[in-house]
């Protein structure tokens, strides 16, 4: 009964989404307030029903109701509760329901909190959201239905892919989807503006927080995925430029650009058309990501062709939404009023530069991700575009952006003064140079570029700190005055500084671990010792152990630094009986300055095991940086002030310059 109620609720949600798509739009065309008003209860009801369906599915997972095919295929009664729950979205069907749930949640948010929006804007936005809902609900119900039943029901499920049975991966998809789907708000607002042919004052005020929230979720989602890959896949790498990773990275790049251009639009009423286009592109990339991951096209273009129902459906959704949106853009964008003007050297100019680089870098990733697919479908030639491609393209493209990041917040709106900015950043520059020199001096080996990379990260952090210091008039006013100014700084300033510093932290982590990682692969017998990065590992041997739903071989290492024992490491290999597959669990010790990372390999002859040990210097900064970015976004999000960019008149700018001197 619960299962069938959930199924019915999902279908009812589809019916409502159809009404939500049609009536409000028709109402706004006819300027009929009653029809437009239908959008609000429709969006709310749609959310409640999808939530009901989701809860029903989750109940089935928790109670191991194997009369549901989806539960049978992706769960087992022996699985721990956490993974029974996360199993709901650990498979294709369930994850699509989660996708739609988040979509409906955002729609309900606009319906509930958007009462001060102009009526026709709200109606159009919800109508577009309804259309996206229709597309994906239809997709779920007709091609990926999670409520298909089994009769008679088996008594045991087929289990859940063991590598996915992991806490980080349990919460990775919800964040990722909140990110993907959050960009649908920007998309819906963009389409609504195009339909109306005008952009209301409230437009950017609404779009930016939604985009920010989505961006935050995507940041954390990507970081969790990378963290998971780092410790679960046993390769010690944090980013593989894998198409699945790129699928989430592309919307992140263009979403970051959108975030900044929406800032310009909100504060300065400029870059309107570009922002709208960017909103469309960002959500389109989210759809592309969904398509890449969900259609099976990545496994092989041929696999996609063999069972094309799902792939073709998502391809259709993409064609309709992306094609339709771009066509609408081409048709209606000329109607939009152009915004304010600004000089190339100005805050706006800096943000345009940011956008330009991010979008270009995103395009490079796009080419690298889709080129093999395109080539295979055209010429049947198989290639792989691996990390070298992205190192040659993406890295050089973003370097100038990273160099320029600290400059942006110092530049005044409308017209800025690069010379004055340079002066204010002098301290940060000195710190960064010092960092380069010190690192260069102490690095025993490693590429000469590495100190420069570390310097870049330091430059980002010091630059972010300089901005706060400057705004609080540190060393220019009394300590009390500085403190008063500091705590009264708008939260968004802290947000910006934190987010930029987070980028710096990640850069340092990436550079350090790429340049100075050490790796040792040896055959070890019990009692033997290996050394890495000043640590000594003594291998005690391997013992067998039974877990809740697996058997494992547990290796023991005693780790010494100097003469004192620091810790024990227990890398394992697990065999999951129900799923019939094995995983490698790395053991990681978070030592000073980096991670000691041990992986147990295959048994060799005469009782030896092959053992792989890494030392990954500063690798955790990568994810700490992402968390800091997330926090920065959160601070900015909860800054409830309206954002007005106060432009400087030429005279004012001169005056400020005099002050600084």
């Amino acid at each position, binding site marked *: 009964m619960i299962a069938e109620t959930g199924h019915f609720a999902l279908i009812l949600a589809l019916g409502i989404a159809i009404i939500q798509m049609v009536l409000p739009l028709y109402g706004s065309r006819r300027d009929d307030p009653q029809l437009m008003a239908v959008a609000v209860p429709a969006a709310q009801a749609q959310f409640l029903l999808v939530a009901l369906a989701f809860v029903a599915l989750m109940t089935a997972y928790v109670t191991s109701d194997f009369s549901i095919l989806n539960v049978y295929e992706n769960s087992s009664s022996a699985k721990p509760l956490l993974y029974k729950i996360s199993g709901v979205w650990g498979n294709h069907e369930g994850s699509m329901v989660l996708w739609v749930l988040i979509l409906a949640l955002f729609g309900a948010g606009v319906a509930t909190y958007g009462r001060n929006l102009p009526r026709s804007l709200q109606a159009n936005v919800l109508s577009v959201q309804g259309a996206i809902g229709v597309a994906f609900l239809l997709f779920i119900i007709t091609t990926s239905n999670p409520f298909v039943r089994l009769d008679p029901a088996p008594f045991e499920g087929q289990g859940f*892919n*063991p*590598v996915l049975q992991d806490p980080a991966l349990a919460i990775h998809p919800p964040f990722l989807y909140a990110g993907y789907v959050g960009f649908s708000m920007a998309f819906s607002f963009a389409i609504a503006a195009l339909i109306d042919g005008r952009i209301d004052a409230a437009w950017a005020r609404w779009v930016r927080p939604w985009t920010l929230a989505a961006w935050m979720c995507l940041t954390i989602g990507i970081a969790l995925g990378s963290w998971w890959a780092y410790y679960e*896949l*046993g390769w010690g790498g944090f980013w593989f430029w894998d198409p699945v990773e790129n699928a989430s990275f592309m919307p992140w790049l263009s979403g970051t650009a959108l975030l900044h251009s929406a800032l310009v639009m909100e504060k300065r009423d400029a870059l309107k058309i570009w922002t709208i286009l960017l909103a469309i592109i960002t959500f389109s990339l989210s759809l592309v990501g969904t398509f890449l991951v969900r259609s099976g096209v990545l*496994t*092989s273009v*041929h*696999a996609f062709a*063999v069972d094309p129902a799902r792939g073709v459906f998502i391809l259709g959704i993409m064609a309709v939404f992306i094609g339709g949106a771009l066509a609408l853009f081409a048709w209606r964008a000329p109607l939009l009023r152009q915004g304010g*003007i*600004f*000089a*190339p050297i100005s805050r706006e*100019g800096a943000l*345009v*530069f940011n956008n*330009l*680089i991010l979008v*270009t*870098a995103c*395009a*490079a990733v796009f*080419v*690298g991700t889709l*080129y*093999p697919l395109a080539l295979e479908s055209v010429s049947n*030639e*198989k*290639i*792989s*575009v*691996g990390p*070298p*491609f*992205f*190192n*040659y*393209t993406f890295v*050089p*493209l973003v370097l100038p952006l990273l160099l320029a990041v600290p400059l942006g917040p110092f530049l005044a709106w409308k017209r800025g003064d690069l010379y004055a900015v340079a002066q204010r950043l002098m301290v940060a520059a000195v710190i960064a140079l010092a960092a380069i020199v010190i690192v260069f001096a102490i690095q025993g080996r490693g590429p000469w570029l590495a100190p420069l990379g570390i310097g870049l990260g330091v430059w980002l952090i010091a630059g972010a700190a300089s901005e706060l210091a400057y705004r609080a008039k540190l060393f220019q006013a009394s300590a009390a005055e500085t403190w008063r100014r500091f705590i009264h700084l708008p939260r968004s300033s802290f947000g910006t500084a934190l987010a930029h510093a987070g980028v710096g932290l990640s850069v340092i982590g990436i550079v350090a671990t790429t340049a100075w990682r050490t790796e040792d*692969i*040896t*055959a070890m017998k019990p009692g033997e010792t290996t050394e890495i990065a000043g640590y000594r590992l003594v291998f005690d041997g391997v013992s067998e152990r039974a877990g809740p739903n697996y058997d494992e071989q547990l290796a023991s290492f005693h780790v010494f630094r100097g003469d004192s024992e620091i810790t024990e490491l227990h890398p394992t*290999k697990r065999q999951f009986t129900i*799923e*019939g*597959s*094995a*995983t*490698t669990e790395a053991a990681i010790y978070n030592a000073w300055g980096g991670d000691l990372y041990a*992986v147990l*390999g*295959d048994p*060799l*002859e005469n009782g030896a095991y*092959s*053992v*792989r040990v890494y030392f990954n210097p500063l690798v955790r900064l990568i994810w700490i940086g992402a968390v800091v970015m997330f926090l920065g976004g959160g601070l900015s999000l909860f800054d409830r002030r309206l954002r007005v960019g106060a432009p400087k008149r030429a005279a004012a700018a001169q005056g400020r310059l005099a002050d600084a001197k």
Partner: protein
Amino acid sequence: MTRKQRRSVLIGGCMAVLAVAVGLVLFALSDSIVFFYSPSEVMAKELAPGQRFRLGGLVEDGSVERNRGTTVKFVITDKAKDLPVTYTGVLPDLFREGQGVVAEGMLGPDGVFQADKVLAKHDENYMPPEVAAKLKEQGLWEGPEQVSRETEPSKVN
């Protein structure tokens, strides 16, 4: 600056960045993409030692030698031609004799493929897609439904 000048600066900047980007992408595509070959294709193309490529096929039965520390020797075959491979490191969980595998690396002067990466995904029935496609072309493999846990490697013939 007039509005027109500003706009031309803006457009000029965009063009410059885009030109750089296109240049980088073209350079990287010509230089860093890795082709995928089966042993037969490697023989037919007479690839020069030192050129990176991915080699895919089945791990020949009984060919895996692990006796020299962590260096593993095995033979990748597409049932028409064989190619010996050496690899130093920990093999993936699902590396098995008779199963599909993709190795990335280059040919050494002695004609042995020196792999620095060996891929096999975390799925019992997984056949790396390139391998599956190549084997299908040669009629050696039918599809995922036929690779079950009990399929004996010899049945692949």
